């Protein structure tokens, strides 16, 4: 199975080198692609210096659109799977083999690294974010008729079929609950795999205060619309 690690990066010149070095050390068999999402700093130069191919978006499009660009690249070059991996060092390369195993075995089309499943732990978000994550997990679980513990996880492995679906519809900013609901409605099978989260290495989070007001609204609306969308509802809820 040919796997591409897609690393969306927006102004990550500080943390990117260490993340790439760690990936080269801990996951040497995997190809890495950095998608520079219109950064104002030296993100692209830093990635090139690490010997990694870089897609440079001329304008800032958002995490979702950057990831989608990576999917286009992966599909064009015949990769079997793409892994979404954060540039800021929050994800641990040691979670990659268990994440990819169910995909390679053909058990699912989408594997999600969850902070709340199994042994993994040590992750504690601020209470407001925790409440939001719980709300959206509950909503998504209800919508797809299956328990899902971590809709906001940024560590996921996508198979070819899911990548192709993601070219049709993909939230521009955060590929969270609405995307998962829509994918479930398309009959995508997924599994959750335990994953670790570490504190970010540098730079600032995508989730800023201004967005913290807009985000819940947008996610709720998009989730409701994703539920109403007609389509093959095989993976959808029976309730």
């Amino acid at each position, binding site marked *: 199975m040919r796997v591409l690690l897609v690393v969306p990066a927006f102004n990550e010149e500080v943390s990117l080198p260490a993340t790439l070095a760690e990936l080269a050390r801990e996951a040497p068999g995997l190809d890495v692609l950095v998608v520079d999402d219109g950064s104002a700093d030296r993100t692209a130069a830093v990635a090139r210096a690490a010997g990694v*191919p870089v897609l440079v978006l001329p304008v800032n*499009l958002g995490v979702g659109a950057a990831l989608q660009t990576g999917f286009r690249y992966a599909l064009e070059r015949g990769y079997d799977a793409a892994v979404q991996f954060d540039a800021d060092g929050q994800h641990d390369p040691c979670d990659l083999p268990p994440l990819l195993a169910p995909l390679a075995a053909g058990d699912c089309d989408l594997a999600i690294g969850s902070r709340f499943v199994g042994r993994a732990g040590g992750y504690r978000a601020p209470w407001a974010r925790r409440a939001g994550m719980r709300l959206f997990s509950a909503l998504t679980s209800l919508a797809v008729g299956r328990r899902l513990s971590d809709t906001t996880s940024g560590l996921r492995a996508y198979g070819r079929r899911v990548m192709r679906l993601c070219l049709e519809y993909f939230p521009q900013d955060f590929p969270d609950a609405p995307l998962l609901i829509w994918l479930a409605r398309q009959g995508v099978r997924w599994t959750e795999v335990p994953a670790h989260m570490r504190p970010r290495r540098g730079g600032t989070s995508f989730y800023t205060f201004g967005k913290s007001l807009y985000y819940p609204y947008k996610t709720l609306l998009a989730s409701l619309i994703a539920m109403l969308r007609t389509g093959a509802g095989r993976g959808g809820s029976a309730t």
Partner: protein
Amino acid sequence: MTRAQLIAAFVAALLGLAVLELVRRRKLSEEFSLLWVVASLGAVLLAFWTGLLTAITRALGALYETSTIFFFGILFVLVVLVYYAVKLTALTQEVRRLAQEAALLRLQLEEAERAGRPGREDAGGRE
């Protein structure tokens, strides 16, 4: 003909002419001009033909002619705004697609250049 009628007709006609002039100078596409030309023609018509305005007001069951004008005016503005929001969404999607394509092509070009001119800068220092 009252002064209010004259002013209304004058403003509506001015708007219509301004829109046509913008189209002539290619600052406004025919597609976007259509709504405005139709609206200003309607306003001029109603300014002169008060009988029509009164008839519409009766048909709607409204009490005053001014309500009719405001009703259609606000409705028109709402329709235009929604139309623009739809257009804006389509444009956003197109720009996103183009930006993605530009990034993919740029990487392909860089790779082709590197492969086509071996030893120029490739030999040193990379990786």
